[in-house]
């Protein structure tokens, strides 16, 4: 296990390097002259030339990449054009809100999905199972940003049960109950699709194990059904955990971003949306770098957890 864990942790380095390389290459493709953005359109040619020199824009690309990496390692993600602040400060500030939404939705999706999948597997072939399968197929096809709009219209505009957006009420202090009240709709919108996908995978993982020979052997030996079930779950767990982790990553750095935009949730999704609208390229690039690091760490945690649960993975 220790050898596997070490190798897997070292794999983070090339993955993060690859992400920074991708961001660097794409930044080169981005339109616009950096000196024009920094000095404004009326700067003299001489001033631009000296800025280009001091920024190292005349250096070969690989030198510029290493400069970029050096800045990243010192926590310098560049300055946001729109916010006139270091990108890292803004992203760090917004990431907390994204985590609040993403982790809440993730917990709902994982707990609900695993429970639903188990129910479906235990009652394989019954009406419950078939209904779950059909409904989950429909729910997983719903775009999160569209579901958010539908939820807002029904529960915020029509029934007025929940707020239409934001993270806290304008008046009053940021209390927990106020936060929960604001969380219900966006967390639901972000959780629905991953919940149904986790339910499907849980179901098929359990059913795949359920037909295994070793369970027949256990039953033949008279092992009570409760313990047979425990063996089933234990053997299905690695693939369920893998899928839960993957879905959590996609949720946090995928569908939740769109949900944030619709609900005006002050996280990195809304920040990305605003950065796109104002062509704030350093901000977009910074957000992608930070998200890639977070995504890589989530994947690392999932792989280590799976390896701890399943000795076969460790080879």
């Amino acid at each position, binding site marked *: 296990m220790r050898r596997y864990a070490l190798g897997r942790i070292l*794999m983070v380095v*090339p*993955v*993060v*390097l*690859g*992400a920074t390389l*991708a*961001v660097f290459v*794409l*930044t080169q*493709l*981005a*339109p616009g002259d950096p000196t024009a953005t920094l000095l404004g359109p009326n700067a003299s040619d001489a001033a631009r030339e000296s800025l280009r020199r001091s920024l190292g824009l005349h250096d070969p690309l690989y030198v510029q990449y290493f400069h970029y990496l050096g800045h990243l390692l010192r926590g310098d993600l560049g300055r946001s054009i729109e916010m006139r602040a270091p990108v890292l400060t803004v992203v760090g500030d917004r990431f907390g809100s994204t985590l609040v939404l993403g982790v809440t939705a993730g917990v709902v999706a994982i707990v609900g999905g695993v429970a639903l999948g188990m129910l479906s597997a235990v009652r394989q072939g019954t009406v419950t199972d*078939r209904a779950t*399968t059909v409904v989950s*197929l*429909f729910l*997983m*096809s*719903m*775009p*999160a*940003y*569209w579901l958010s*709009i*539908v939820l*807002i*219209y029904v529960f915020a*505009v029509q029934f007025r049960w929940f707020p239409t957006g934001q993270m806290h009420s304008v008046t009053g202090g940021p209390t927990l109950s106020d936060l929960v009240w604001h969380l219900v709709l966006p967390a639901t919108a972000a959780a629905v699709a991953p919940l149904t996908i986790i339910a499907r995978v849980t179901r*098929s993982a359990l*059913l*795949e194990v359920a*037909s295994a020979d070793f369970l027949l052997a256990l039953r033949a030996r008279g092992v009570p059904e409760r313990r047979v079930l425990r063996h089933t779950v234990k053997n299905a767990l690695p693939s369920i955990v893998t899928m839960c982790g993957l879905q959590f*990553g*996609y949720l946090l*750095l*995928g*569908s939740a*971003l*769109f949900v944030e*935009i*619709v609900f005006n949730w002050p996280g990195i999704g809304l920040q*990305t*949306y605003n950065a*796109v*609208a104002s062509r704030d*390229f350093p901000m*977009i*690039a910074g*957000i*992608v770098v930070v*998200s*890639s690091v977070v*995504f*890589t760490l989530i*994947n690392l945690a999932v792989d280590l957890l799976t390896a701890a649960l399943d000795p076969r993975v460790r080879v």
Partner: protein
Amino acid sequence: MSEQVLGAEVVAAAFPPREVVQGPRHGWLGRTWRRSPAGVVGAGILLFFVAVAVLAPVLSPSDPTVGSTADRLASPLTAGHILGTDGQGRDILSRLIWGSRPSLIIVGASVFVAGGIGLVVGAVAAVTGRLGRTLVTRALDVLLGLPPVMLAILVAASIGPGLRNMVIAITLVMIAPMTRIAYQSATVIKGLPYVEAAVAAGAKRRHLVAHQFVPNMLAPVLAYAASIASLMVVLGAGLSFVGLGIQPPQADWGRMINDGRLVLPVAPYVATIPGVALFLLAVGCNLLGDSLRDALDPRLRT
């Protein structure tokens, strides 16, 4: 002559054709329907949207990009505007019909390109030595380590908006997962007797890739492509939703949903109707993907 005909009759009587025993004759469609109704429904939905996209100039009742302020926010079922009009007085049905084009083009083109790349890279990696395998698996590790939505947004923001650039962005997102599936099925195929036989018969690597690997990898890759296509439909419209895709006044479902947010309290249908179309297309892809996967792997059948 007559003996031969008599012989045929005897044979036919001794071995009655199956449809005589099993009831009325079913065509290809009927057999497929009985085996997988969900798959037929999914394929039907996809064909419907393809037909709508192709026939858009004929079907569309009015110009999708021009509206009149007098007709702003007409509710559905208004005369002349079956699905109503949006905030700029444009006919929603017409925009819906034309908006099917970018969605289908993006998904179709990116599945085709990413699938093709995945098949070739996966097969080549399987027949080359250890170096090729290591290179491909390590490259996949890096690419799959990038969050897909963020990657798409970054690419689209860098190379600019528009249909062609959206195809590029979505293709780049799809290459890694498609190649992974292709490579996985190639490693399975590599251990099968017919590949061994071909190698023993002296087949060259090029022949192995083109005639042994790619044709047999096609089915699992296609099944995966259909499932992932539903995610890409949603992601593609999502790029337009964020403002990185199809630019106004061109019709696009994601764009229409975002435009409708402004008038949601007074005219909820503007944002919700294009979402229904998007949802149906995603359901079609998922149904097709599921039944293709079931046909390939009966263990997972629901």
